[in-house]
C-alpha cells in the first residue's frame, strides 16, 4: 500500500498539468476534475494514515524509493518518500484543508473566466506541498519547496491585470529567493560535510540519540546548518526579517490566502525546523535563534494585526504572529516540537476558516476589504458570522476550543524555558485577543457603515459548507491533545522531554493565560463599541504605535534602506565602473590607436610631388650618412 504513496503527489500533479494543457474545452468541468484529484489525495492519505495508526509504534515510518534521481560519483540522491507520523499529519492537513478550499473555490471563482487555470495551479500547489512533506531527502524537499514557491507566485499574481497583484507576486518570489539561498547553502554544506543529504541519515532517529551524521560532526556544523535552514524557514514562513511579502501576498484570490498563505505553505518553515530536529537538538545557538525569530515575529505580527483596516491584511498579520508561536515552540526543542505541530494543525483549521469567512464577506460586499465599511453583518450573513465566530473563539484561546489547548501548551512550554520568552508569548496572546475582537466588532457588530448600494447576502452552499466543516474543526481539533495523542504520536519522530517544571500549578497558568486573553477581548469591545470613522484617518492623528503598525512596522522601509538601496548604489557603481573603467580601457586603447593613425595619415597627401620630395629627402639623408661614416 505504501508503495503507492507517490500517487498522492502524482494524481494532483497530473490533473493540474493536464488541465493546463487541455485548454478551453475543459473549462466547463476542469474545476471538478481538480477537486476530484484533491479529494483522491485526501482519501488515499486518510487510508494510509489509518493503516499507520494500526501498525506498531516503531513500525510507523514507511519509506519507498521510486528511482535514483542523481547518481554522480559520491553524490547519490534517491527520489524517495517517507510517510511517517509527522508527514502523515501534514498530508491530512494539506489535502483535507486543500480539498475544502477546492470546493469553496468552485463558488468563489464561479464568475472568473480563468477558473480552470486557477484550479490547475491549486492542484500543482497540492502536489508540490505533498512532495515537500513526504520527501525523504533534503534535495527532494527542496524540489517541493520551490514548487510551492512557484504555485504561490502564480496564484498571488493570478489577477495579473492588476499591477499591485503582479508586483506582490514578484515580491513574494524575490523575498523567498533570499530564504532559498540559505536552504541551498544548507544542502550543499550537508553534502560537503556528510556526503549525503538524506533527512534520516543527517538527523538520525529520535529514539536512538547520537545516530545521525550531525551528532558526530560537532556543534559548529550544526549551528551553521541550523541558521541556514532557519533563513530558508524565515523566507517561506514570512518570519522577521523576511516577513514583508506576506501582507502584499493578500492581493491573490482569498482561497489562495487561506490555503497557501495561512494554512499550509507558510507553515513549511515550521515543518522544516521540526523535521530537522536532529540538527537543532545538536545546537543550542541555532535553537535560540529560532526562539528569537519566533518571539519577534509573533509580537510584530500581532502589532500589524492591530493596525490594519484591510480584513485580509489584518488576518495576514495574525498568521505571521501565529506562525511565530509555532517557530517559538519549535525552538524550544523536544519540549516544543509536538506543540508546534499541534498549533500548526489547529491554526490550519481556524485560520483557513477565517480567511474563507473573509472571502465570503467580500463575496457579499462586492469585494470590499476595508473593515471600516463593514459593520452589522451578523444578521445579513449568519452562517459566515457563526463560522467566523468559531474561528475567532479558537484563535483567542476560548476554553474548550482548539486554540485554547494548542496555544496554552506553547505558552507553558515557553515559561518553562525562560520567564521572558514566556512573558512575550503571553503578551502576544493578549494582543491576539484584542485584534481579533477588533475585527469581530468592526465587521459583524456596530452600525452599518456600508458604502454605496451593496446588499450583503449569504454566500452559496458550496462556499458555506466548507466554512461549517472548518468551523467545526476549529473547535473539535483540540480533542487531539486531550489524551496526549499528538505528543505520543509524534514522539518517535521528534522525541520528547518529560514533564517540564513550571514553578506554578498548570491550572493557574491556564487561568493567567485565559484572563490575559479575556482582558484583550474586553479592551477590544470597549474601544470599538462606539462609532468608527469610515474615512481613512490621517497619519498625524494617531499614535506612533498605530502609525508603525499601519506601515507594517516599517518592514518595507527597512528592506529598502538595508538591502534595496545599497544594492542599487552598488549596481550604479558597477555600471559606472563598467562604462568608465572596463570599457574605458578598451575604447581608450582604440582611441589612442586612432589618434596615432590620424597623425601618421598626414604625410600621405596623395600628391606625387610630395612623395618625390620624401624620396629626395631620404636619399639625401643616406648620402649624408655615408659621407659622415666615410669622413669620420
Amino acid at each position: 500500500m505504501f508503495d503507492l504513496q507517490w500517487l498522492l503527489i502524482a494524481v494532483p500533479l497530473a490533473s493540474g498539468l493536464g488541465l493546463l494543457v487541455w485548454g478551453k474545452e475543459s473549462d466547463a468541468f476542469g474545476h471538478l476534475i481538480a477537486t476530484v484529484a484533491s479529494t483522491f489525495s485526501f482519501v488515499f492519505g486518510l487510508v494510509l494514515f489509518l493503516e499507520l495508526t494500526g501498525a506498531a509504534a516503531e513500525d510507523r515510518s514507511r519509506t519507498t524509493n521510486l528511482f535514483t534521481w542523481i547518481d554522480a560519483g559520491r553524490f547519490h540522491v534517491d527520489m524517495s518518500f517517507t510517510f511517517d507520523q509527522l508527514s502523515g499529519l501534514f498530508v491530512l492537513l494539506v489535502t483535507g484543508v486543500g480539498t475544502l478550499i477546492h470546493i469553496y473555490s468552485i463558488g468563489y471563482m464561479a464568475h472568473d473566466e480563468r477558473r480552470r487555470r486557477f484550479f490547475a495551479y491549486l492542484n500543482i500547489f497540492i502536489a508540490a506541498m505533498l512532495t515537500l512533506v513526504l520527501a525523504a531527502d533534503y534535495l527532494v524537499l527542496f524540489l517541493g519547496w520551490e514548487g510551492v514557491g512557484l504555485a504561490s507566485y502564480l496564484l498571488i499574481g493570478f489577477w495579473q491585470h492588476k499591477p499591485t497583484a503582479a508586483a506582490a507576486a514578484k515580491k513574494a518570489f524575490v523575498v523567498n529567493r533570499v530564504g532559498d539561498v540559505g536552504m541551498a547553502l544548507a544542502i550543499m554544506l550537508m553534502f560537503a560535510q556528510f556526503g549525503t543529504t538524506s533527512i534520516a541519515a543527517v538527523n538520525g532517529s529520535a529514539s536512538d540519540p547520537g545516530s545521525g551524521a550531525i551528532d558526530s560532526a560537532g556543534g559548529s556544523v550544526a549551528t551553521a546548518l541550523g541558521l541556514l535552514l532557519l533563513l530558508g524557514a524565515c523566507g517561506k514562513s514570512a518570519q522577521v526579517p523576511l516577513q514583508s511579502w506576506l501582507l502584499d501576498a493578500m492581493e491573490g484570490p482569498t482561497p489562495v490566502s487561506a490555503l497557501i498563505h495561512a494554512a499550509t505553505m507558510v507553515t513549511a518553515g515550521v515543518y522544516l525546523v521540526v523535521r530537522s530536529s536532529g540538527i537543532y537538538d545538536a545546537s543550542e545557538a541555532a535553537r535560540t535563534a529560532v526562539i528569537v525569530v519566533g518571539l519577534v515575529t509573533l509580537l510584530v505580527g500581532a502589532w500589524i494585526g492591530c493596525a490594519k483596516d484591510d480584513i485580509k491584511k489584518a488576518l495576514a498579520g495574525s498568521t505571521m504572529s501565529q506562525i511565530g508561536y509555532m517557530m517559538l515552540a519549535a525552538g524550544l526543542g523536544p519540549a516544543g516540537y509536538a506543540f508546534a505541530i499541534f498549533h500548526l494543525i489547529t491554526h490550519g483549521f481556524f485560520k483557513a476558516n477565517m480567511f474563507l469567512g473573509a472571502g465570503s464577506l467580500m463575496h457579499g460586499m462586492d469585494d470590499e476589504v476595508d473593515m471600516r465599511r463593514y459593520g452589522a453583518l451578523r444578521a445579513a450573513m449568519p452562517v459566515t458570522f457563526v463560522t467566523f465566530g468559531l474561528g475567532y473563539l479558537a484563535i483567542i484561546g476560548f476554553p474548550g476550543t482548539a486554540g485554547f489547548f494548542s496555544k496554552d501548551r506553547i505558552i507553558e512550554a515557553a515559561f518553562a524555558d525562560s520567564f521572558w520568552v514566556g512573558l512575550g508569548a503571553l503578551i502576544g496572546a493578549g494582543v491576539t485577543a484584542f485584534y481579533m475582537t477588533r475585527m469581530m466588532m468592526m465587521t459583524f457588530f456596530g452600525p452599518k457603515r456600508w458604502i454605496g448600494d451593496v446588499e450583503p447576502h449569504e454566500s452559496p452552499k458550496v462556499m458555506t459548507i466548507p466554512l461549517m466543516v472548518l468551523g467545526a474543526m476549529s473547535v473539535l481539533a483540540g480533542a487531539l491533545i486531550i489524551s496526549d495523542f499528538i505528543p505520543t504520536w509524534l514522539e518517535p519522530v521528534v522525541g520528547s522531554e518529560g514533564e517540564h517544571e513550571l514553578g506554578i500549578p498548570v491550572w493557574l497558568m491556564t487561568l493567567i493565560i485565559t484572563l490575559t486573553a479575556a482582558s484583550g477581548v474586553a479592551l477590544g469591545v470597549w474601544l470599538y463599541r462606539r462609532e468608527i470613522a469610515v474615512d481613512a484617518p490621517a497619519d498625524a492623528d494617531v499614535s506612533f504605535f498605530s502609525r508603525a503598525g499601519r506601515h507594517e512596522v516599517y518592514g518595507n522601509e527597512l528592506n529598502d534602506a538595508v538591502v534595496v538601496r545599497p544594492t542599487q548604489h552598488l549596481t550604479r557603481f558597477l555600471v559606472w565602473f563598467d562604462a568608465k573603467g572596463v570599457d574605458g580601457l578598451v575604447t581608450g586603447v582604440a582611441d589612442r590607436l586612432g589618434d596615432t593613425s590620424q597623425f601618421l595619415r598626414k604625410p600621405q597627401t596623395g600628391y606625387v610631388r610630395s612623395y618625390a620630395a620624401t624620396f629626395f629627402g631620404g636619399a639625401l639623408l643616406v648620402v649624408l650618412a655615408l659621407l659622415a661614416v666615410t669622413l669620420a
Partner: protein
Amino acid sequence: MTEYLSLSLILFTIGAVGVLVRRNAIVVFMCIELMLNATNLALVSFSRQIGNLDGQVAAFFVMVVAAAEVVVGLAIIVSIYRARRSISVDDANLLKS
C-alpha cells in the same frame, strides 16, 4: 674632370628641382630624363678617370632602362590624359581618400 662633374651636378639639380616644383607631367618626365643623363655623365667621367670600362657599361644600362621607362611612362600619361583631360600631377591624387 671637375668641369664634367660640375656639369653633371648642375644638370641633376635642375632635374630634381624640376621634378619637385613642376606640375606638368611631361615636364616632370623630361626632368627625370635630365637626372638620368646627369648620372650617365658622372658615370662616364669616373670611368674615364679610373681607366675602367665598368662605368660606361653601366651608362648603357641606364639608357636602356630610360628608354623602357619612357615607353611605359608616356603610355601612362596619355592614358591619364584621356581619362581626366589633364596632365597635371596634382590632379592625379586618387590615393588620397
